[in-house]
C-alpha cells in the first residue's frame, strides 16, 4: 500500500458509546488521484485482503487507463466508467446503459435502485451502489461525493458532533 498510495484518514461522522460499546459508525475508503478525483471506493468495513485486492485493481486499472488514454482526460474518464460498469456486470449482474447514465445522472438523485439496460430497476448492495455511482459519474471529486457515499450508501449521517457516551 505504501508503495502506490499516500494514505490519510478523516473523521466525517460520529457514533455513540453505549455501556462502553460502540454503536453506529462506519468507514469508506476512497482511492483517489492526488487532485481528489475518485477512482474507486470501498464502502463499509473491509478486511485487509479485500482492501488490498481493491487497491491492486485500482493500480492496475489506472495503469491501463493511462496507456489507453494517452493523456486525454475524456478517454481516461471513459475508461474508468467502462471499468466500473464491467465490474457491475460481472459481480452484481447488472448491465448498465452507460451512455444513458452519463446523460441523466446527478448525485442529488442518486438512490440504491439502479436501472439496467432494459429499463428494469434493481436493488443493489453497498459495493454494487459504489460501482453504479462511479460508472455514472467517474472521477467525481471526493468533496462532492463523500456525503452521498456516507449518507445514501452507508446510511450514516455526516456530522461534526463529538462522540456521545451513555
Amino acid at each position, binding site marked *: 500500500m505504501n508503495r*502506490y498510495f499516500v494514505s490519510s484518514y478523516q473523521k466525517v461522522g460520529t457514533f455513540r458509546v453505549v455501556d462502553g460499546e460502540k454503536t453506529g459508525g*462506519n468507514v469508506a475508503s476512497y482511492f483517489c488521484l492526488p487532485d481528489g478525483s475518485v477512482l474507486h471506493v470501498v464502502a463499509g468495513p473491509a478486511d485487509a485482503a479485500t482492501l488490498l485486492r481493491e487497491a491492486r485493481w485500482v493500480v492496475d486499472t489506472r495503469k491501463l487507463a493511462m496507456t489507453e488514454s494517452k493523456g486525454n482526460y475524456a478517454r481516461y474518464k471513459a475508461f474508468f466508467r467502462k471499468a466500473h460498469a464491467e465490474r457491475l456486470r460481472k459481480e452484481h449482474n447488472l448491465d448498465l446503459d452507460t451512455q444513458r447514465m452519463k446523460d441523466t445522472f446527478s448525485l442529488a438523485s442518486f438512490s440504491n435502485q439502479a436501472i439496467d439496460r432494459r429499463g428494469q430497476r434493481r436493488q443493489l448492495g453497498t459495493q454494487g451502489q459504489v460501482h453504479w455511482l462511479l460508472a455514472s459519474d467517474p472521477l467525481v471529486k471526493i468533496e462532492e461525493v463523500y456525503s452521498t457515499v456516507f449518507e445514501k450508501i452507508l446510511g450514516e449521517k455526516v456530522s461534526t458532533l463529538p462522540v456521545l457516551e451513555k
Partner: protein
Amino acid sequence: MPPVTRRAHAAHSRCPQQLPIKHCGDIYIVSHLLPSFSIGRLAPAYYEYGAKPASMYPTPGPRIYWRTVAVVGASAWLLVAAVVGACVLRQRSAEEPRASLKVLPEQVLASPSAIVEQSSPPKQEAPKPPVTPAAPPEAPHAAMLAKNSPPVPPPALFREDRLASAPLLPVSEQPLPQETMDFERCGTQVDFASNPSEAARLALKERKLLLVLHLSGEFEDSKFT
C-alpha cells in the same frame, strides 16, 4: 562695438587719454571673458598703459590661469569619479541577493538540507591537509550550476501580486513542510498522514495515488474503529 563694451568704456572715463574705442573695446572684451576677480587687476594695468602707444601694450591674447584651471579640473574629475564609484557599488549590492536567489531553487531541488547546512554555522572539523589553492571552493559549485541548469523561470513563489491579493489562511491552517509531516500506523502496516491535504500534496509530489479513509469512529482507538 557691442553695447556692453561701450558702457564699460564709459564707466571708466577716467582714462587719461581717449584711446581708440576699438582698442579699449578689445581690452574690455578680454577682461569680460576672464574671471571677475581679474578685472580689477587688468583695468589699472590698462590705464597705466593707456598713454603709451598701442604697440607697447601687452598682447591681448588669451590669458590662462593654470592654477584655476587645475583646481576646477581636479574637482570635476573627483566629482565624476565619486559618481561612477557610487554607481558601481550600487549595482554590486543589487546583484548579490539576486545571485543567491538564483541558487536557492536548485539547492532546494537537490537537497533541502543544503539550505540548513548553508545557514547553520560551520561545524568544527578535524584539521585537513593543506589543499592547493587552485580555485576558491565556491567556484566549481557555481560553475557546475551555471553549466547544468538551464535558465530557471521565476517560481510561483515570487508572484507577489497574486499572493498579496489572495487572503491567506492563518499559519496554523497552512500546509506543513514535508520535513515536519509525521505519519502514524495506527496498528496497521500502512503509513497514515495526519492530514488529507498533506497526503494529497505528497501524493502529487511522489506521483502516487491517494487513499483517504472517511470514518465515523476513533481511528486511534481500535475499540471504536
